[in-house]
């Protein structure tokens, strides 16, 4: 996914070798693991009201429309899915059954997946959740008004252009590939093997929707809760108040702690203000935290060096990938692309973003945090010369088709990107490259660079894995070339396509991951379609009376599951 609109910055991050974070351990849990209740954080207290402050309201509440991490995170409070991630210990997670009794059973070499629903799982009105609801949930995702959510399962069940195969259940037709032998069992039959399907079902987008209460478009405004809370009030773009869902039973839920009685969500604050408020820790703000308001670079020094904040600090590297894509249609000479990679002022950009504690300098396309079996490589000497190797770049350019190329660099015009642009221009020009900088309107930035026929040579874009595997990164960012598609490099190589297809269908999850890692290096070596950008390290704060706050390393957001309020 592309993550929520970033706050205070537009660049996102991956871990640095220097930082003392280890990548999260993620494994598949057993049926035993899938039993509720959730593992309690230390010193947990139940009850009270917790406040969450953030900048933007969630655009969607209908699970089928949820793709962005902030919405997914909020979804944890009101939606449940077949599977989910259970926090076992700090940095350790298990994929477990959420509504399902376990993380699913694959058969037929990974082509068939079946799940059994737990007893006692109910909707907010007390009616039990059935397999029909699950089937309906997936079926309705084919409907035309569903535009935002994930599409993996749909495509696997039908074809790449899944909407062409099935128009959704509202016309009365159902989808044969999903079977519900009884009220508790649901079986998915995929066209090809997908060893990681249980990870896919953990996406918030596959949170379930009651067949009886489906209001189609309107559901996006008033969803029915299957999770621990119900929405008591919602003022668009401003606030939420959540109250307990009396029909949610902690015993069925291994994931959600749901400790506070009331949740208050407040929107409209910039991250700078949120940080200042949390640093001040005054009055009601002591019970406050933020899902996603990263400490902006301007406050990092203060937040990181103030010892009194240590207990309220949360730090986690970004699980996303940030790339400066070359437009391969325009920058055709690989030497030039590599020269730019060598000249890239990673260190300078890092400093602008707030220093090594604010941004890591990854060297690989795949992100260390979200790739099981991650292995590092450094093709452009970034570890040795993070500030860029101008000499090497000049050498490469000298041997290229154009020793003094002109590069049109488009960027999202935010204050931070403006400053980063200054550094990039400065560095590349030292290497003899003329840089034409093109500030782009924030709201149309992705539209503009998403056009296949654009007039730019280099531009930034981010992508994050949907689960801890290269299969949700490389096939996406080097996927189909189309307007609006995330293949911003326009890399269209049949051999590569075939190779990716082959890896994706490998039945062994670990082998698959190792293959993705090798492909990562190969792409950078032979094609160099992008510059791997700095990855930010999130630092966030919470109020002194908030307990259990922790950044979910996969979603890169403070998880609500462990939050509690100290009296």
């Amino acid at each position, binding site marked *: 996914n*592309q993550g929520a609109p970033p706050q205070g910055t537009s660049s996102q991050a991956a871990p640095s070798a220097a930082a003392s974070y280890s990548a999260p351990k993620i494994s598949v849990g057993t049926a035993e693991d899938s039993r509720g209740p959730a593992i309690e954080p230390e010193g947990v207290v139940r009850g009270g009201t917790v406040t969450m402050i953030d900048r933007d*309201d969630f*655009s969607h509440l209908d699970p089928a*429309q949820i*793709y962005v991490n902030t919405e997914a995170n909020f979804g944890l409070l009101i939606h449940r899915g077949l599977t989910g991630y259970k926090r076992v210990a700090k940095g350790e997670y298990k994929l477990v059954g959420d509504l399902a009794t376990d993380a699913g059973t694959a058969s037929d070499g990974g082509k068939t997946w079946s799940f059994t629903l737990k007893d006692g799982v109910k909707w907010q009105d007390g009616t039990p959740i059935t397999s029909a609801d699950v089937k309906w949930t997936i079926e309705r995702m084919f409907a*035309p*008004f569903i*535009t*935002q959510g994930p*599409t993996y399962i749909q495509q696997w069940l039908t074809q790449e252009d899944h*909407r062409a195969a099935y128009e959704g259940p509202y016309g009365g037709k159902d989808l044969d590939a999903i079977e519900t032998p009884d009220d508790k069992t649901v079986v998915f039959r995929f066209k090809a093997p997908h060893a990681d399907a249980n990870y896919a079902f953990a996406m918030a987008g596959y949170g379930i929707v009651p067949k009886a209460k489906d209001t*189609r*478009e*309107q559901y*996006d*405004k008033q969803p029915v809760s299957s999770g621990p809370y119900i929405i008591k009030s919602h*003022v*668009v*773009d*401003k606030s939420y108040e959540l109250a307990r869902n009396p029909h949610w039973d902690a015993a069925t839920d291994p994931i959600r702690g749901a400790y506070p009685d009331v949740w208050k969500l407040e*929107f*409209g*604050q*910039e991250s700078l*203000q949120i940080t*200042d*408020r949390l*640093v*001040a820790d*005054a*009055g009601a*703000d002591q019970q406050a935290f933020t899902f996603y308001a990263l400490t902006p670079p301007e406050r990092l020094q203060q937040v990181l060096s103030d010892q009194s904040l240590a207990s309220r600090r949360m730090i986690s590297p970004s699980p996303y990938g940030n790339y400066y894509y070359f437009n391969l249609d325009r920058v055709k000479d690989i030497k030039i692309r590599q020269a730019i990679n060598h000249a890239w002022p990673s260190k300078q950009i890092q400093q602008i973003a707030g220093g090594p504690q604010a941004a890591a300098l990854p060297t690989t396309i795949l992100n260390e945090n979200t790739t099981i079996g991650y292995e590092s490589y450094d093709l452009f000497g970034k570890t040795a010369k993070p500030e860029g190797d101008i000499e090497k770049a000049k050498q490469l350019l000298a041997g290229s088709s154009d020793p003094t190329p002109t590069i049109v660099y488009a960027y999202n015009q935010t204050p931070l990107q403006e400053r980063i642009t200054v550094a990039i221009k400065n560095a590349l020009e030292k290497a003899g490259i003329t840089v034409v900088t093109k500030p782009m*309107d*924030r*709201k*149309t930035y992705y*539209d503009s660079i998403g056009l296949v026929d654009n007039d730019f040579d280099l531009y930034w874009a981010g992508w994050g894995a949907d689960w801890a595997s290269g299969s949700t990164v490389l096939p996406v960012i080097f996927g189909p070339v189309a307007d*609006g598609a995330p293949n911003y490099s326009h890399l269209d190589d049949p051999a590569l396509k075939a190779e990716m297809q082959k890896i994706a269908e490998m039945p062994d999850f670990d082998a698959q991951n190792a293959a993705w890692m090798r492909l990562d290096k190969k792409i950078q070596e032979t094609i160099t379609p992008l510059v791997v950008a700095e990855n930010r390290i999130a630092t966030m704060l919470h109020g002194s009376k908030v307990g259990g706050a922790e950044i979910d390393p996969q979603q890169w957001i403070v998880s609500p599951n462990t939050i509690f309020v100290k009296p």
Partner: protein
Amino acid sequence: MLRFAVRRTIATAVTLVIISAVTFFLFFALPSDPALLACGKVCPPELLALVRRNLGLDQPVMAQFVAWLAGIFAGRDYPGLGYCPAPCLGYSFVNRAPVFETIMDRLPVTLSLTVGAAVIFLTFGVATGILAALRQGRPLDKIASVASLIGASVQIYFVGTLALYFLVYQGKLLPSPSYVPLTENPLGWAAGLLLPWVVLAIIFTANYTRMTRSTMVENLSEDYVRTARAKGLPARTVVLRFALRGTLIPIITIFGVDLGTLIGGAIITETTFGLQGLGRLSVRAVTYSDLPTLMATVLVAAGAIVVMNAVVDALYAVIDPRVRLT
């Protein structure tokens, strides 16, 4: 008076329609396609067409404008989204809510911010202005004029940022700015808005002090003020009943403008203090190409100014019986 009211209402309506039309057509020139934004990441052409139809974007611009205008009075039906009842300012696909609801939600914030600040800067500005005029040339006058000059030169984001830092985060003297509905908790309401009020007042007071001072100085030398003194009226009465009366006209003139602008949205103030009023709503609407919301905020902003102007004109007649309302 009634005639005036009717005539001004007509004029106001005409002005608002013109401003709405200008906004509507101008923002239509924007390159970002609202349907595309509403449609989402993966947007096949047929889906786009559907969104277009639902939002009425497939109509000619003129027809869309008329539909929008008619919606205000008659309500409007959005296929797939439901009916939007009578004062329908459109349906925001960004907020996924009828715009009118959102506006009504933000308006109390903006009004509280505006009215509270206005009360402070008006009373304080006029009072210091009067004192400065009466103490013309004395230290108090000098202090007032220097203070007002500085007040007029500083920026809300400068004062606001520093005030937040020193008074709220560091000093912990004031609660962090927030909006609590007046009806819910009057004290909390005042406490939450105190800082924005004061900061706005710092900047606006200056103008009133200066204006009051200079007109007051002029008015104090008016013949009728001299007459009042010659009648043996106490100095207080002379100043407050006679001299001040004439000073009110220029004051309410700028007051009307200020109030109108503030109701339209104190964008920077709201941003600085994280208040959710019309100002930020409008900026957000621009940022997301949310045309219906934008139109509505423009309408409110322009409406506030135009209405305040009409009110000011009516007040002229109340203050000065020579003014005839036509």
